[in-house]
């Protein structure tokens, strides 16, 4: 089995009208055996900045800790919050620094910048970054997720509708992937705050 499909993951992030949503499945498996159904893959780095990490479980956890460390250092030196764009570029550099022995993770950065405009970016495991205006996906069933997003996505959705769209896109995609699923979690970030909901998904 490929190292990128060893633990299984599915993450989608979408932009709406002055809001962003990011959703992930909850499974941690070892190849075909499911070990946990509450494994976190999305991490809140700042009140309006989330990072989703899809790939090898151990690297997800390591990279999350490394990112937190680097963010804290930045905040101490610069005495200001990190903007999503800066985080995205920093993450890209961290990944490229391990070019010949990479972290097996394909991250997604989702957040609102200083003017509360949505920011979405994704990158491959060696840091090739791509910023998008509509949606980004990462994980073991990207084919499924792209299909669902392309058909369900509409620009300028309000928070309620964005939640519904994200949830449906994620659940339908993971139901066709053996190594992801077992529930879901969605975070919707608006300028008022963050709304987090757990999804009731298929447990097989």
């Amino acid at each position, binding site marked *: *089995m*490929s190292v990128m*499909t060893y633990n*299984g993951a599915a993450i989608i992030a979408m932009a709406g009208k002055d809001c962003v949503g990011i959703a992930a499945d909850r499974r941690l*498996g070892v*190849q*075909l*055996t*499911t070990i946990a159904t509450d494994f976190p893959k999305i991490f809140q780095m700042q009140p309006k900045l989330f990072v989703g990490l899809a790939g090898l479980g151990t690297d997800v956890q390591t990279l999350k800790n490394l990112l937190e460390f680097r963010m804290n250092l930045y905040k101490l030196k610069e005495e200001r919050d990190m903007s999503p764009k800066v985080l995205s570029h920093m993450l890209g550099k961290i990944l490229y620094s391990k070019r010949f022995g990479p972290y097996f993770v394909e991250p997604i950065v989702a957040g609102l910048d200083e003017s509360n405009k949505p920011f979405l970016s994704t990158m491959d495991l060696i840091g090739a970054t791509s910023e998008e205006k509509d949606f980004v996906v990462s994980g*073991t*069933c990207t084919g499924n997720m792209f299909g669902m997003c392309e058909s369900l996505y509409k620009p300028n959705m309000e928070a309620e509708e964005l939640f519904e769209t994200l949830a449906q896109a994620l659940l339908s995609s993971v*139901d*066709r*992937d*053996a*190594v992801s699923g077992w529930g879901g979690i969605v975070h919707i970030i608006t300028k008022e705050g963050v709304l987090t909901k757990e999804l009731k998904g*298929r*447990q*097989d």
Partner: protein
Amino acid sequence: MSMFGMEPLVIGDDILDIGSRKAVDRYCGNKAQIGLSQDLLMGRPGAFDVPNVKDPALYCSSHFRSTCGTGDAGQEIKFAKGTTTLAFKFNGGIIVSVDSRATQGNYISSQTVKKVIEMNPYLLGTMAGGAADCSYWERRLNLQCRMYELRNGRRITVAAASKLLAGTMASYRGYGLSMGTMITGWDETGPQLYYVDDDGTRLKGKMFSVGSGSTFAYGVLDNYYREDLTLEEAIDLGKRAIYHATHRDAASGGINNLYHVTKDGWVKIHAIDVNDMHYEFEEEKRNEMSS
């Protein structure tokens, strides 16, 4: 041309003729030769077209394996497989319980596969491993059982049926077939359960579970199995064992199809979505905790 000295298979224009009278003539030349009837030709090595290479067995088993789990990771073609099936004998007959998911690599190709093959009203076969391999050879077995019935005026025993299948599998050993099946039925010696697999293994037993999720099912089965289970308890056990396997094994899921084999033949008991079972059992656990 002698009956047993067949010519080497010529690959080319005869791909549509396998099983036809023309193929029979080509193989045995003289139609008056007794014993080499048409149905005995299929299932014999050489009766299928194989790739035109020096060692067809090696080529097939390295490029067309339909192995469980990730054994086919290096192959271009990934066949549909992945499963949990189980069957156990108890005082009221036999319970056969299966899931319904088929996977190709990580992709779930179907959640509605019929893994219990209803061969005839008194014989059931289960499917685990390569979906095509199981369904083809078990339908083939059905044909052979029917021929036996017509020729001998009585039903075939489960022991004989499973032996026919095991013999076929043994003759295709090394070609990369993947099949782990349980042949079960009720004949004049009572309820019978046999496990047959792709290398020709044939085992008689009281309880078997086959497939990528079998280890999870065994855990539940071994814990609660008794010979004197009532029918309701046996059905519940079969249902629970499959549910636990589908929850933990990524390659199992979908719908639980459960059958009961009695002396008057088999009966399909239920087809329940395993996701619904999850919430039913969760509710049950909650009630137990609070009481």
